[in-house]
């Protein structure tokens, strides 16, 4: 077929030339050669030979055409083919002195040293020296063909003169000592035929030094016919900052031998991801192996393991089935690594966090043979698990796993029967193993500690820190808080003294000290030990602490009001004027006014709002009179001065006062009492401040005021702010239970395009989620409001089987008695109990009253643990149906319990939610 085509082509070409003269054909060949098309030129020349015979000009053109073709083949690295063409060219070698310079250069470039020099000598017969040809000869020597040949040249010929240094440098270049080679090339001048070799060497030196600019500059100076032109071309692309990254990577790959390690791993990673997405797992496994070996040939398993761990995330987001992932793991990793990896996956997934952590810790010796490292790994795993549980609110999880935790008592350190206690046990156990981990103490400080036992655990933890970090005031401050919570004031003061010794200039310590004095004064006021309270207040004031000044002032006012309550008269209109005139009649308002007169409006409002919060929880003589006076004064100040306040000042006034002031006030929220007295306060806030504030004061009593403000702001807000305001408003509508419609959220979200604006909405949604519960919380957290419309999805993430496992064994204990095995559901015993109840009928249920009450109590606990209190019936029913559908045994067992309750007439003692869960519908009580 190819022969036929060739024939056809030749025929066609010949036809084209049939009517042309020799000169015309020669011109045509010249043109074809100029356009670098030697094959067409050769066809034409063959025709010319046939028609006109072989002339000198035709021979010369044959020679040129073959040389050009040879050059092309060499560029394509087809050296065998090029050599064959060279043989053909050699048949037509013309006289060298007749050859054009460029043609001779081409001829020389592939000739032996000796022949090349002979050819050059022939060329020079009738002409001058040619720098181009000499350069070609220099390249020929450089490529290492025949250094001896230059010795035939005259001694002062630059090719011979400079040959020595170049020969020496070439040997050094061969040994990859490029800098020494460059030194050896020092004698080579810019006009030398070897000059390009020196420039090339300089480029390589700069390249290996990492001086890309100098390397690129040098490479640009090298002529295109340099022997390493392909490599130079690729390097130029690599070093050129203007070349696109992809092209650069491809060029790097072409000269990959110049680098250690894979030069285009991004391409391999992309390929791997593509294989996963297209479910080509066999190819994916091969790619992982290839990448791992390329990155770290001696430790490819480490890389394979890392990649495999990363691939697990693909299965989590369902870009890969679990089954496929497991199959890939088996192909990628040896068995001894697979088991610990799946153990870790269980730990990260935390489906059963307590038992997963226990199992993992039990097996640590394999992964951490060094005992010291093992200890740290143990402590860190405990801390990680406790932190995870606290974030997720693991109450239910604790109840589910409680029967199994005993197996890992030593590993987890859990002794407590409560969830809060268990977390504290884990963290203090972690501290016991690794007392040097500050994170553990920081975390311990944030854990809830309501019972006396829990407080003791926290105390023991911080006592360890006290010794471990002798210069740090943090444990002292935390212990002081703990002692105040336990009303151990003397101990609190002593430990604060210690904090002062450790860090006398630490602002936290000073603040805490003033606060402790205020707490002490508060207690003394309550106990009516006024001389002690006065002493505390004076000491607190002596600190002149700017941050706590309003609190000190407020407590002083409270002290004055309390000590002079019986001497004060009710306020009368015009009281202030009378004071200035007579100075004798004292009312609560005048007392407050006198104390605060020298302070700014902001400070006055701050102190008065604190006093108002304080009075709410106090027993005082003439409290009604005091409250009325204060409210009047606060109202007047707000009315007169609200416009003089700045946005940030209003923000500070309305924001919660901080958890550390808990021991001083009944509530930490001054916003409701201030907004009630002046709604105009909200108008002063900038939209940014308003949004930040509302996130912090999102109390049901303020919903109405906040919604109203959000609406009015939205009318004049910028596009971006309007969406945030609308989203906030829709969220409050849902929080208040007024609305339940995902479309309302999507109406806002759909207006926003992907980008910073949508990110801002997403972030707001996440922040607001902490105010919500149930599906709304999940929807806000996930920024997926379809959750609100879903049926079963209304209860995201609830492990029903586990919940039921939690409920049923306890009922079993009731009916099965102490003999019942701990982890099995003794159906027969329950049936027995049921039969007894059926037989005795409703008349004798009193004998089982305790048991029945217990069943109801447990069922209610179950409802609480499922977090479905307040859900509409249809949602609870859908959940029940789903549970029955997925677990027929559970259906049978729950129906049995329902029958017991029904037959004994105790069904109506269940809450609505409990009834719907057990019976599918609720009866009116």
């Amino acid at each position: 077929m190819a022969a036929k085509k060739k024939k056809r082509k030749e025929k066609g070409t010949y036809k084209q030339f049939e009517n042309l003269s020799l000169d015309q054909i020669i011109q045509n060949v010249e043109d074809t050669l100029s356009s670098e098309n030697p094959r067409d030129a050769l066809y034409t020349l063959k025709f010319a030979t046939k028609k006109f015979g072989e002339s000198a000009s035709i021979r010369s053109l044959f020679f040129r055409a073959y040389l050009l073709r040879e050059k092309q083949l060499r560029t394509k690295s087809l050296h065998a083919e090029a050599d064959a063409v060279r043989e053909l060219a050699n048949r037509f070698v013309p006289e060298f002195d007749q050859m054009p310079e460029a043609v001779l250069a081409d001829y020389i470039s592939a000739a032996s040293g000796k022949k090349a020099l002979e050819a050059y000598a022939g060329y020079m017969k009738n002409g001058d020296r040619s720098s181009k040809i000499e350069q070609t000869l220099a390249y020929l020597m450089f490529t290492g063909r025949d250094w001896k040949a230059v010795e035939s040249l005259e001694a002062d010929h630059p090719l011979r003169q400079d040959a020595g240094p170049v020969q020496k440098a070439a040997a050094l270049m061969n040994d990859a000592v490029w800098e020494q080679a460059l030194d050896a090339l020092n004698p080579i001048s810019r006009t030398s035929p070897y000059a390009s070799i020196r420039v090339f060497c300089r480029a390589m030196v700069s390249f290996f030094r990492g001086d890309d600019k100098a390397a690129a500059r040098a490479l640009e100076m090298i002529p295109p016919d340099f022997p390493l032109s392909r490599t130079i071309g690729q390097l130029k692309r690599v070093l050129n900052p203007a070349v696109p990254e992809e092209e650069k990577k491809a060029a790097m790959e072409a000269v990959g031998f110049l680098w250690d390690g894979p030069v285009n791993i991004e391409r391999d990673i992309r390929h791997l991801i593509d294989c996963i997405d297209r479910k080509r797992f066999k190819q994916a496994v091969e790619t992982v192996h290839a990448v791992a070996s390329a990155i770290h040939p001696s430790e490819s398993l480490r890389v394979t393991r890392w990649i495999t761990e990363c691939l697990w995330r693909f299965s989590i987001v369902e870009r890969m089935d679990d089954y496929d992932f497991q199959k890939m793991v088996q192909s990628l990793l040896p068995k001894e690594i697979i088991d610990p990896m799946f153990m870790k996956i269980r730990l990260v997934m935390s489906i059963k966090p307590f038992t997963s952590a226990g199992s993992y810790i039990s097996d640590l010796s394999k992964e951490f043979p060094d005992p010291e490292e093992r200890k740290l790994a143990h402590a860190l795993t405990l801390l990680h698990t406790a932190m995870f549980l606290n974030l997720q609110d693991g109450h239910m999880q604790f109840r589910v796993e409680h029967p199994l935790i005993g197996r890992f008592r030593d590993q987890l350190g859990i002794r407590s029967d409560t969830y809060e206690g268990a977390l504290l046990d884990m963290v203090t156990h972690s501290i016991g193993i690794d007392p040097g981990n500050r994170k553990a103490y920081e975390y311990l400080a944030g854990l809830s500690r309501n019972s006396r036992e829990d407080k003791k655990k926290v105390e023991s933890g911080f006592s360890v820190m006290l010794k471990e970090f002798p210069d740090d005031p943090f444990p002292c401050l935390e212990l002081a808080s703990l002692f105040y919570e336990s009303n151990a004031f003397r101990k609190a003061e002593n430990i604060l003294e210690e904090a002062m010794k450790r860090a006398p200039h630490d602002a936290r310590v000073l603040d805490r000290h003033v606060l402790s004095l205020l707490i002490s004064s508060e207690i003394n006021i309550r106990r009516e030990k006024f001389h002690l309270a006065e002493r505390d207040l004076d000491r607190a004031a002596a600190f002149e602490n700017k941050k706590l000044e309003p609190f000190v002032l407020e407590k002083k006012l409270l002290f004055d009001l309390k000590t002079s309550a019986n001497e004060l008269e009710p306020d009368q209109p015009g009281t202030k004027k009378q004071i200035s005139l007579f100075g004798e009649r004292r009312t609560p308002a005048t007392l407050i006014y006198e104390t605060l007169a020298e302070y700014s409006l902001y400070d006055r409002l701050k102190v008065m709002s604190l006093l108002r919060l304080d009075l709410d929880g106090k027993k005082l003589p003439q409290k009604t009179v005091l409250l009325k006076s204060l409210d009047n004064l606060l109202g007047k100040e707000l009315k007169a001065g609200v416009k003089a306040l700045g946005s940030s000042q209003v923000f500070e006034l309305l924001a919660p006062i901080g958890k550390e002031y808990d021991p001083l006030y009944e509530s930490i929220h001054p916003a409701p009492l201030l907004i009630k007295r002046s709604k105009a306060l909200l108008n002063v806030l900038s939209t940014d401040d308003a949004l930040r504030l509302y996130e912090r004061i999102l109390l049901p009593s303020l919903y109405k005021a906040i919604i109203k403000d959000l609406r009015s702001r939205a009318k004049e807000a910028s596009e971006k702010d309007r969406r945030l305001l609308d989203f906030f408003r829709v969220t409050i509508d849902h929080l208040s239970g007024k609305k339940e419609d995902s479309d309302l959220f999507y109406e806002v979200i759909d207006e926003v395009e992907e980008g910073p604006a949508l990110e801002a909405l997403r972030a707001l949604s996440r922040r607001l989620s902490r105010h919500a519960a149930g599906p709304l919380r999940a929807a806000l957290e996930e920024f997926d409001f379809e959750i609100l419309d879903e049926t079963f999805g209304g209860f995201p993430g609830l492990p029903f089987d586990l919940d039921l496992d939690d409920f049923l064994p306890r009922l079993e204990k009731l009916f099965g008695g102490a003999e019942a095995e701990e982890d099995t559901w003794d159906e027969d015993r329950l049936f027995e109990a049921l039969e007894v109840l059926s037989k005795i009928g409703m008349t004798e249920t009193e004998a089982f009253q305790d048991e029945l009450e217990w069943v109801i109590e447990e069922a209610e606990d179950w409802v609480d643990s499922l977090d479905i209190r307040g859900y509409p019936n249809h949602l609870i029913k859908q959940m029940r149906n789903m549970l029955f559908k997925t677990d027929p045994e559970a259906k049978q067992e729950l129906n049995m319990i329902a029958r017991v309750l029904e037959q004994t007439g105790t069904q109506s003692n269940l809450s609505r939610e409990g009834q719907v869960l057990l019976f599918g519908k609720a009866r009116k009580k």
Partner: protein
Amino acid sequence: MLPYYFVLNVSEDATDEEIRNSYLRLVKQYTPEKDPLRFQQVTEAYEALQNRRRRILGKIFGGLSTKEPEDGLWMLAASLRPVRRPVGLQALFDAENED
């Protein structure tokens, strides 16, 4: 966290001192002006490996702790910077003449 070890060019059992020395060497090499991206990577890697507890935590959770599915893989790719390998002239000629 394997990529961090690659960024700092230290072995998994490197000591605190070895890690610190490598970090100091690399921040001198990749200054924020010269190579801000690498500087950031080096700093991040040092933060993650500077003490034993963090290294152990990294060893426990490894690639499982990445947030998004592709994060860990791209992190690995970004951590690797091929190092220039001085090769001899003959190797260059051989490569030039390769098909």
